[in-house]
């Protein structure tokens, strides 16, 4: 009797491997480039507002690492969520549900980039920023994707922290620490996330329902979601003006953020007021589209002011 009794009976002559289908473009799609662009932008603003100097090459490296770290989180998110991504119309064309990249390939890609981006940020910039990036990836993949997303309607409220950390990491790349200013930048994105995502969830409600993701409109109903969108907007608008009062933004930002915030509030009131049919759908899509413009403008004006002040 042999110790090895079992023989592999697979005929390797006829083995066909269904992996290796992904093009370079498919792997870039795993990085969620559109999310990445907002991460790069907010991290850049955090770096520019931070006191102190960072050599432009080191600054570029920091931004690259933050961007790749965010992309790695996206790839790991797609790895874990492949089952629900194939059900939702918004995500069905992503590389894994489309059959272009296997789950194992996406996992390996995400892990490699996570370790690479954190190690490079730590070695070349500073280890506080590197550790912060590692925590952000952990928060997005483990806390949000694996734990909260499928278990609570507060998923994007708490998980939104991951998307709000980049300006703090940018700031930490320059200073090696955190401060009230960078925390306020974090809070703006953190409080902005619920009205932004719930506006999307209101007009993609059927998708989330089909996939069994407990988004707020699915669990608490559309009326409660509209109330909460308005509630968060009422907190967000004054919070977004606060950099002026705290003293790290100028009068241009103060006036512009108040004006932009008034428009945000107007759209949120419309979402709250219009609850039936086409007008309701239009109100939510408008708030969703405007919310992206709003956040972009807030950070763009902060950046412009800091550039003008530096002249």
């Amino acid at each position, binding site marked *: 009797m042999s110790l090895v009794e079992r023989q592999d009976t697979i005929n390797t002559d006829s083995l*066909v*491997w269904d992996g290796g*289908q*992904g093009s*370079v473009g498919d*792997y870039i799609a795993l990085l969620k480039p559109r999310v990445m662009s907002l991460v790069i932008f907010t991290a850049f603003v955090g770096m520019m507002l931070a006191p102190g100097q960072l050599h432009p*090459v080191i600054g570029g490296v920091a931004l690259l690492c933050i961007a790749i770290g965010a992309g790695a989180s996206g790839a790991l998110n797609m790895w874990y969520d492949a089952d629900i991504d194939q059900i939702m119309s918004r995500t069905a064309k992503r590389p894994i549900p489309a059959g272009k990249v296997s789950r194992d390939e996406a996992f390996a890609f995400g892990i490699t980039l996570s370790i690479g981006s954190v190690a490079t940020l730590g070695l*070349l910039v500073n280890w506080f920023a590197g550790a912060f990036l590692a925590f952000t990836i952990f928060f997005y993949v483990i806390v949000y994707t694996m734990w909260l997303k499928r278990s609570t309607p507060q998923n994007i409220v708490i998980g939104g922290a991951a998307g709000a950390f980049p300006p703090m990491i940018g700031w930490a790349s320059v200073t090696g620490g955190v401060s009230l200013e960078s925390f306020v930048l974090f809070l703006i994105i953190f409080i902005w996330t619920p009205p932004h995502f719930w506006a999307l969830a209101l007009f993609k409600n059927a998708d989330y329902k089909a996939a069994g993701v407990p988004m707020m409109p699915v669990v608490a109903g559309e009326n409660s979601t509209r109330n909460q969108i308005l509630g968060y907007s009422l907190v967000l608008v004054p919070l977004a003006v606060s950099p002026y009062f705290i003293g790290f933004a100028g009068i241009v930002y103060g006036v512009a953020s108040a004006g932009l915030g008034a428009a945000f509030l107007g759209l949120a009131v419309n979402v709250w007021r219009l609850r039936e049919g086409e007008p309701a759908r239009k109100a939510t899509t408008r708030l969703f589209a405007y919310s992206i413009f709003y956040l972009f403008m807030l950070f763009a004006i902060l950046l412009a002011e800091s550039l003008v002040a530096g002249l």
Partner: protein
Amino acid sequence: MTSEEKGIRLTEGQVKRRRSRSLAIALTLGALVILFYVVTIVKMGPEILNRAL
């Protein structure tokens, strides 16, 4: 059948995409080498010449 023909056989499309992925990895590794070199020079600055002979 020769031994080279045994095992997993890739389709023409898989071979083509593998080549493009390999090229992308090579370019990325090359870029990293240049990046680490440049950052080393930037971090050392003028000190790079200031050493005992």
